[in-house]
């Protein structure tokens, strides 16, 4: 109250640490991508990479976790089968101590519950072959598609019908030359695809410690060029990176919503729809000239990045950010090239080992790993999703959030009764004490 007793309203503003009205992500926009905000454990009912082909030898068994679901894979007579890695009896992971008595089954090593690889049905129990449970229950099976050196699994909810499983192509980036008209690329040749005849996929995957969405958005965030300014390949090849890239029009991004195809977005990089930022007067920064490398990024559900014309012509880089739990993901970096002869394959492998792995997969992308972790604390308890203050360049992640909210085939429920669902269990603590961080693969029992 002032001197004469009248009551006055508080003055607005004055404090800086408030959410600004000028942020792009207001309440209305956030509602549009609420499903994405709910998807901490991933989008389910989608195709995800599980293993490289060479990681599953004939007759081998391996266990992984995707979207909070434990999955066991077995290769028999060349074909890969995938089942839920959780015995219906008492939840044991079949993959932790592989036991297979026939070519068509896998047996739980604890009490002998045996499942048919094709149908998942409980076909017998080793020590209890007349039990009435047999034949009436089983584990969920997951369709598998192996190609070009990679094994993909359709990670689905238990009651997702077989007839609704889409082809793998619906969860892979757009292909060329089929899309040359829609997405012309005058600066580089047709981008290869995993689905091409003769395609060879070489790459690696490793576990990252952040939510999958943070990792995914980093892949196509055009404003994070600054993070890469010290990467060796940039200097070895004398590329000059701009300080940043700004959208110049509303259609700098085009949605991909093909009826029988992938769903996501394409960014018109290296066109006049995005302008490089070469100067910041206030900070006295200036980039002289520009010897860049042309590339273009797109992302489609369930969260697979395509970087066309990278790191060289006729090669494409794919990245996946496969949710393991809500705070770990499996980061895949895969380079694909069409190799028609054994010589071409050998040359690609040599260059991959000697140039691409040290300079690109590690040399360029390692810093993305720590960049993602840097945001994890803010987002892990939900604060970031509500309180982030986005700017115009964030049109990329915002568009991704909206298009994925619309087209995802399901939102994975938080993992229950599975590894790392609880963050403080005694087994997790023991593993940490042994120096083993939470990961993607099952811990095999050494007996």
């Amino acid at each position, binding site marked *: 109250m002032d001197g004469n007793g009248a009551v006055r309203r508080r003055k607005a503003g004055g404090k800086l640490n408030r959410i600004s009205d000028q942020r792009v992500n207001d309440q209305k926009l956030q509602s*549009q991508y*609420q499903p994405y905000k709910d998807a901490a454990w991933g989008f389910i*009912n989608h195709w995800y990479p599980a293993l490289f082909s060479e990681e599953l030898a004939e007759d081998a068994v391996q266990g992984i976790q995707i979207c909070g679901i434990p999955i066991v894979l077995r290769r028999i007579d060349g074909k890969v089968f995938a089942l839920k890695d959780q015995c219906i009896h008492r939840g044991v992971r079949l993959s932790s101590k592989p036991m297979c008595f026939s070519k068509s089954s896998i047996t739980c090593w604890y009490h002998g519950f045996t499942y048919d690889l094709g149908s998942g049905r409980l076909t017998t129990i080793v020590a209890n072959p007349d039990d009435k449970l047999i034949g009436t229950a089983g584990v969920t099976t997951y369709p598998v598609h192996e190609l070009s050196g990679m094994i993909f699994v359709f990670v*689905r909810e238990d009651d*997702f*019908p077989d007839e609704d499983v889409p082809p793998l192509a619906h969860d892979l980036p757009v292909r060329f030359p089929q899309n040359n008209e829609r997405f012309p690329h005058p600066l580089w040749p047709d981008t290869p695809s995993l689905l091409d005849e003769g395609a060879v996929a070489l790459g690696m995957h490793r576990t990252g410690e952040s939510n999958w969405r943070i990792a995914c958005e980093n892949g196509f965030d055009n404003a994070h060029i600054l993070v890469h300014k010290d990467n060796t390949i940039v200097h070895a090849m004398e590329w000059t990176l701009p300080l940043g890239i700004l959208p110049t029009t509303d259609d700098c991004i085009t949605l991909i919503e093909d009826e029988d195809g992938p769903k996501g977005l394409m960014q018109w990089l290296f066109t006049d729809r995005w302008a490089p930022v070469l100067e910041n007067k206030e900070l006295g920064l200036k980039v002289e000239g520009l010897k860049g490398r042309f590339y273009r990024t797109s992302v489609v559900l369930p969260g697979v990045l395509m970087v066309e014309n990278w790191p060289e012509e006729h090669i494409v880089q794919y990245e996946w950010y496969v949710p393991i739990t809500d705070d770990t993901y499996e980061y895949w970096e895969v380079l694909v090239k069409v190799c028609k002869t054994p010589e071409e394959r050998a040359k690609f492998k040599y260059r991959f080992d000697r140039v691409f792995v040290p300079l690109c997969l590690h040399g360029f992308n390692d810093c993305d790993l720590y960049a993602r972790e840097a945001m994890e604390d803010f987002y892990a308890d939900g604060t970031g999703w509500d309180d982030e203050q986005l700017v115009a360049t964030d049109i990329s992640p915002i568009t991704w959030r*909206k298009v994925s*909210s619309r087209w995802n085939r*399901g*939102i994975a429920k938080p993992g229950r009764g599975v590894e790392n669902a609880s963050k403080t269990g005694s087994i997790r603590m023991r593993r940490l004490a042994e120096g083993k961080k939470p990961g993607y693969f099952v811990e095999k029992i050494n007996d």
Partner: protein
Amino acid sequence: MTTAPAYAVSFRFRDGAQRSIVTDGSIPLLDAALAQGVPLLYQCRSGSCCTCTAHLVAGDAEMASDAGTALLKSEREKGFRLLCRSRPRSACAFDLAYDSSIAAGAARKARVFVNALDHLAPDVMRVRLELAEDDWIDFRAGQFIQVRVPGTDAVRSYSMSSTPSELPNLDLLVRLIPGGVMSEYLRSRARVDDVLQIEGPFGAFFHRDQIKAPHVMIAGGTGLAPVLSMIDALRRKPGRKPRVLLSFGCASCESLFCVDELELRRLWLPTLATRVSVDRGAEADGIRIGNPVTAIAAADVEDPETVAYLCGPPAMIEAGRTRLMALGVSADRIFAEQFVPTS
């Protein structure tokens, strides 16, 4: 001495399960059947809620003529009966529109806190509730609860506009009626953190499993509540989503509500199309003048598998049923719930 008649009455559920009873017709069929262990759905037991609706397919059963019931004349003529009001006149057989397992979800009492009270329109309030610690109810998308007006003995029924996945939160859309007991409470006395007594779930109006068939949903006014719940529940089910057409009608543009909510659903569910109608006023962007029933065209229900859900005032249900059947929708694929203000 006259021996009491003995009528054999059979009930066939949608899943094929069959139950039979023998009754002398001295008490309503609902009471006789429940006493003999038939799992029937019911709620008001007084002819107003239509939960106990059954289709008489053989024999003769009549409803007590001195009791006005909420069953429409057209429905009665097609053979529908309210079991709480019906007595057999011969051996008879009834078909029920729900599975024998449904009634297993028995109604329970619970207490809820009021989390928010939002005026969505001059005569529509959204009431956001949350179950108290240690209390729980469950429901199927489309069902309703009874809410006791605090300080009175009056109870009113409201359908949840939220889905079971949002429990312990429950949302209701309430039409405010001049002089209505609940309306007065909500308008003048209700506060956030008030505690209300509820009971539920009730109702035979909930989403059926024909997930793949094209859906037509017609909602009038706060009849949008159960329909919105069904659309949100459908969105969460795994597998390919069916085409859904929602035709929503209100009296006027001023009384329109949930327009933003519908826009979000259209964004989240690519197979959803919506049409909004108002009875009167000037035509506005995306809003047609008319009623939500006439907004449905023959092309919308071409597929013979089309399933329809209607919720709103009795006149709208009557008109909706008539129109849909005239356009070829099968009578047993039309589900309806009437919203009638309690006087």
